[in-house]
């Protein structure tokens, strides 16, 4: 089955996206809801004013969006190929988005997940409550253009189990999708979400999702994010999470695919003893650019936060880590820890790291560390002296470095999925 009509690829840059908004505004879901129309218009205006961020913007110092701004993108086609080959499921229940649209056919009807587009009338006051657009042009763009996404609502005490959210993009055309996902956990609820971005083919496309995650009191979310986009993809995602008292937002970010990827997390610890883990691993091969950027807002007392991000770079690749911890004056007895390690496997790779502490409370314990280096030759020597060939010794050490990053994930299903994605990366690279 093929497209009814082939929508044109727009011109390059911000103007192309704005034109697309002009063309689509009368057809976007929720066009009958005044509050949403207003929100979209304001967001488009904000994007028009800001444009795509240049490297002169401090938060984008190390990531150049030229591959995005110098190319044109088109709207995804409406019909969905039901015979789309999909990766093996990572969880018993899976929901699938194709080109940013919820696919009823491919999704498990038992999962507590609904299509966002079909439930927009209920979302007044909630959609955009966490996702701010003023200084985040990509979020503004997403707000203006989103067509669908998932809606997960867990009642107090409900256990949502393990759910896989698979976003597939068919890379045969340069499509751009901007899904919006809303997740809310009532008090004491629990959810393990394995979120995968999967690319089908090697062409250029843009996948730019925005998440708004509300974690209620004593609730617990594990958010395992696996970016395994196609080779030509641009992946720009933004997560907003707000955690109430004693709640936990436990996330792990894996960057393995895409040509250019940046994942931004804005996490706010809003209630006492709320916790956040923002761990991650970036596996970057030749020609890849990966950027893991996090903002952690300690806005309540007694909150712990943990962050370990590891980056492995091969070939001509570039890795970026930016992590900011902001401790408000009320956030006494904050315990923040941030670790960032990079392993350079090539003399053409570059790593840029900017851990940042901004602290306005005095009774705090905050620390960060960063290390950058190549494989420890002494460790290689140790293995070789025990009869292991050099190539294999290196491969073992790289594998160990990566698996160590994943080990911190406490949820077994999520950890297994991540470990599998990481396993054998170096063999594939070296091959």
């Amino acid at each position, binding site marked *: 089955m093929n497209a009814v009509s082939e929508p044109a690829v727009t011109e390059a840059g911000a103007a192309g996206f704005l034109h697309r908004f002009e063309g689509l505004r009368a057809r976007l879901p929720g066009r009958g809801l005044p509050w949403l129309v207003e929100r979209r218009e304001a967001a488009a205006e904000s994007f028009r004013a800001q444009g795509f961020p240049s490297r002169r913007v401090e938060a984008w110092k190390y990531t150049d969006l030229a591959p995005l701004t110098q190319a044109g993108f088109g709207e995804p086609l409406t019909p969905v190929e039901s015979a789309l080959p999909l990766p093996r499921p990572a969880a018993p229940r899976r929901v699938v988005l194709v080109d940013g649209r919820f696919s009823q056919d491919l999704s498990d009807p038992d999962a507590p997940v609904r299509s966002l587009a079909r439930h927009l009338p209920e979302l007044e006051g909630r959609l955009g409550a966490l996702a701010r657009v003023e200084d985040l042009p990509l979020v503004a763009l997403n707000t203006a253009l989103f067509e669908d996404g998932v809606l997960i609502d867990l009642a107090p005490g409900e256990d949502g189990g393990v759910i896989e959210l698979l976003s597939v993009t068919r890379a045969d055309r340069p499509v751009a999708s901007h899904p919006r996902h809303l997740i809310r956990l009532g008090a004491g609820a629990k959810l393990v979400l394995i979120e995968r971005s999967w690319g089908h083919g090697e062409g250029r496309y843009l996948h730019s999702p925005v998440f708004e995650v509300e974690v209620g009191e004593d609730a617990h979310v594990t958010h395992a994010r696996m970016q395994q986009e196609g080779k030509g993809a641009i992946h720009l995602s933004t997560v907003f999470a707000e955690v109430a008292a004693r709640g936990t937002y436990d996330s792990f970010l894996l960057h393995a695919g895409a040509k250019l990827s940046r994942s931004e997390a804005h996490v706010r610890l809003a209630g006492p003893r709320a916790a956040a883990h923002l761990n991650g691993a970036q596996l970057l091969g030749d020609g890849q650019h990966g950027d893991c950027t996090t903002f952690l807002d300690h806005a309540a007392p007694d909150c712990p936060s943990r962050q370990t991000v590891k980056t492995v770079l091969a070939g001509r690749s570039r890795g970026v880590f930016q992590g900011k911890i902001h401790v408000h004056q009320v956030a006494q007895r904050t315990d923040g820890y941030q670790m960032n390690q*990079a392993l350079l496997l090539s003399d*053409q790779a570059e790593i840029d*790291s900017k*851990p940042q502490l901004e602290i306005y409370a005095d009774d*705090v*314990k905050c*620390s*960060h*560390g960063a290390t950058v280096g190549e494989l420890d030759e002494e460790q290689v020597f140790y293995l070789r002296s025990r009869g292991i060939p050099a190539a294999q010794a290196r491969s073992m050490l790289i594998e160990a470095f990566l698996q160590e990053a994943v080990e911190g994930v406490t949820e077994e299903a999520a950890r297994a999925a991540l470990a599998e994605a990481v396993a054998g990366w170096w063999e594939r690279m070296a091959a």
Partner: protein
Amino acid sequence: MPAVTETIDTVASVTSGTYKYGFETEIEMEFAPKGLNEDIVRFISARKNEPEWLLAWRLKAFALWRTMEEPRWPAVKYPPIDYQDAYYYAAPVKKPGPKSLDEVDPELLRTYEKLGIPLREQAILAGVEGAGESPAEGRMPVAVDAVFDSVSVATTFKGRLEKEGIIFCSISEAVQHHPELVRQYLGSVVPQADNFFAALNSAVFTDGSFVYIPKGVRCPMELSTYFRINAKSTGQFERTLIIADEGATVSYLEGCTAPMRDENQLHAAVVELVALDDASIKYSTVQNWYPGDEDGKGGIYNFVTKRGACRGRRSKISWTQVETGSAITWKYPSCILQGDESVGEFYSVAITNNHQQADTGTKMIHLGRNTRSTIISKGISAGKGQNTYRGLVKIQPKASGARNFTQCDSLLIGDQCGAHTVPYIENRCMTAKVEHEATTSRIAEDQLFYCRQRGLSEEDAVGLIVNGFCREVLKELPMEFAVEAQKLLQISLEGSVG
């Protein structure tokens, strides 16, 4: 400068911790008209009898400055500066050299006295004929160059240093007597267009110190410059240039004070260091400009560009700074490690109390093979102070085997202050190794309790703990300075506990 220690003792007991250098000396001054334009640049240059090339150099800097914007990225806040509302040239009126101390302008002498400069050196500084050629008794001699507002007033121990072939004089003198050296190196580390304040300095710098250590010479004494902003509504724009030729070694100290005023004064200095093969430069600063009063009124804006180039193989540049003064501090003493196996070091203590703001750190740019750098930064925030460490470690592809270790620790005293850490690490070399660690905490209750239990007052206990916190940096200072710095730390923090 070392005798400043004693002054602190005496004055501290009287004023108990308020700013001790807050006196103004009424000396006949000569001012250039207020404001900044090309004519002022020409005026300064003409007044200093400068060669044509230097005037052209200044004018180029001025033209560049006009096209530049004031940086807004530092984490400091201040009202816009009116660059037209300041004097860019102020010099004590020159009279023929007095025959003895009795003939010296008593106001100037009183200033030296308050600064704690010993009599013999006072005589030299005041330009008493024949003074200063025999070494002072009983202690290590220190050669001093005093810069008063815009002009270097005197340099001591010149003769002794000349015997070794060392040039230590004001930069204006160097322009007259060693123009080839100045021309070769001026602006070679900090170009005119480097940044807004460096461009401003390049256009209007009025004096500063110049040091040249010839090949293979180890400078026999500490060299020291003493800076003071005295006159009202003046900016101080000094320029320091230190060159250590092959195999040379020098240790240089810098101290600063200013009178108390309720307006803000601008200090935009440039310091350039050049170390050739096997040369070593140690540059120490105790910065104690007037920090403003308890409500944040007045104080110096200290916007300084300091950079050293390790041009030669195995050369070494070490920066040590103790920053206790200034309303706002904005400086990043940096090292460009060009020569293979060259070494850069940065040791810093920065204290902000009351409404002080500091945004300081370093840049280590690794270009050569096996270059090494160490960064140790200790930030202390008290009162409503805001303290930011901002640093860059950059390793270029050719810097194989480069090594960096960075440690920045912040200490918070009170819940109204802020401590921030913004390190940038950019590595493009596989074989380089970079380590960075940072911590932020407050003074541990158990440490305080331990000290109090042994009879120390809370204030003394805090002083003791803070000194311990800064020990790694203070031990890098030359001994006389270390003692002074320790006292300064304690004084700066007074009123912040309890």
